[in-house]
């Protein structure tokens, strides 16, 4: 049994909150540059130039790419041969607290959804834990902005809706969102499972590197087809018109019930932030 100290988890989460918020992953940068190269509409080119300039400024100044530094979604893959010394949940929350305070990040969490008083330190994290094989602890922090989160959708489709129903639902979600989630967007899709599992798959789909397709050939093709359909909608960067509405569509699937076809769409803006560390 390998021992990992809670203090090391706190330090890692704190670092990851700051790094993820100030430095965009290279796959997202590459997609934005490719989108700019493929774009022909003048207004859209101008917007993409400014988006690229923005992440360059953020890199140079260690500044938050976007002022909505999000709710801290923290994904833990805990090796079954690991023992944590200390309180795991509190270790993660302390990491978020330090990262958001020391990193001059915005505190965007309210304690109660109706009362709406800010917690003042961006805690609690949205914590997702998976038990996996091995003796490592993998921590991913994905700060999630709510402009795009608010445009996410879930549907309990009927088996008879089939693949056409799934495509229609996903494309409609993007079209209805229009300019609101700060296109160009990344579209995370979860199909199958239960109501909650579909939503979780859609969220985890956003962590997959852009340009890397599903291992299942059928769904890899679906991802490509959906991306083409979405980029034919004409919404464009920021919704001002143009080709580049989405950078990628990532689809995750799992088995489901004979009576169901759950389908969830979790949208991310072009600031598709996440960073991982392995302890």
């Amino acid at each position, binding site marked *: 049994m390998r021992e990992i100290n809670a203090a090391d988890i706190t330090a890692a989460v704190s670092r990851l909150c700051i790094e993820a918020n100030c430095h965009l992953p290279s796959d997202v940068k590459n997609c934005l540059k490719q989108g700019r190269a493929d774009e022909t*509409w003048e*207004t859209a080119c101008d917007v993409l130039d400014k988006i690229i300039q923005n992440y360059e400024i953020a890199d140079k100044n260690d500044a938050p790419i976007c*002022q909505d530094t999000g709710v801290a979604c923290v994904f833990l893959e805990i090796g079954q041969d690991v023992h944590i010394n200390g309180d795991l949940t509190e270790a993660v929350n302390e990491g978020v607290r330090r990262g958001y305070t020391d990193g001059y990040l915005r505190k965007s969490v309210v304690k109660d959804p109706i009362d709406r008083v800010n917690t003042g330190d961006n805690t609690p994290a949205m914590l997702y834990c998976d038990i996996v094989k091995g003796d490592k602890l993998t921590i991913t922090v994905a700060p999630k902005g709510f402009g795009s989160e608010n445009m996410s959708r879930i549907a309990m489709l009927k088996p008879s809706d089939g693949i056409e129903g799934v495509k229609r639902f996903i494309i409609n979600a993007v079209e209805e969102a229009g300019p*609101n989630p700060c296109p160009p967007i990344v579209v995370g899709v979860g199909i199958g499972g239960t109501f909650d599992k579909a939503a979780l798959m859609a969220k985890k789909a956003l962590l997959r590197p852009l340009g890397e397709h599903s291992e299942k050939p059928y769904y890899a093709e679906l991802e490509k087809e959906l991306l083409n359909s979405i980029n034919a*909608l004409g919404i464009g960067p920021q919704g*001002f018109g143009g080709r580049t509405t989405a950078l990628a569509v990532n689809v995750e699937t799992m088995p489901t019930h004979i009576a169901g076809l759950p389908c969830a769409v979790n949208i991310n803006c072009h600031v598709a932030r996440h960073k991982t560390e392995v302890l």
Partner: protein
Amino acid sequence: MAVYINTPFTTADAENIKAGDTVYISGTIYTARDAAHKRLCELVSQGKELPFDVKDAIIYYVGPTPPKPGMAIGSAGPTTSYRMDAYAPTLMDMGLRGMIGKGKRNEEVISSIKKNKAVYFAAIGGAGALLSSCIKTAEVIAYEDLGAEAIRKLTVENLPVVAVIDTMGTNLYEVGRKAYLESQK
């Protein structure tokens, strides 16, 4: 077309702007988002004075990150505007001339924009680091308890925005998309 304006933002300035124009704003603007709008409209319904004069003013829907030492403000891009739709017509009826945000507005807001000769601008969502460089000073003038959501008085220089809904009600989100799709036929 590129248009340069200085605040106060008058009716004449507003009428000169067409949907799709890139507009560079200089002068004083005010920040307010969800919680501040709720409080402003409560003051209006009680007949009380607002913390700043909304006549010919521009409100920027933004909740910035905290400034690092030596900086006026942290990252400061726009938040999604539809959450302010319930409040915007009340403020436009009192003379508010410009709003900066991002994303769609509802029919009531568009009608009020036309009636009051106001303009709805969009700044680039997710470009908070870039937009922050145009903000020279920032001072909290109300609701400090709201943190990022407090009302700030900003001095801006050539803040780049795009006119989305003009005084005639023309909406770039509709005409821009349509023009692009027609160009692809």
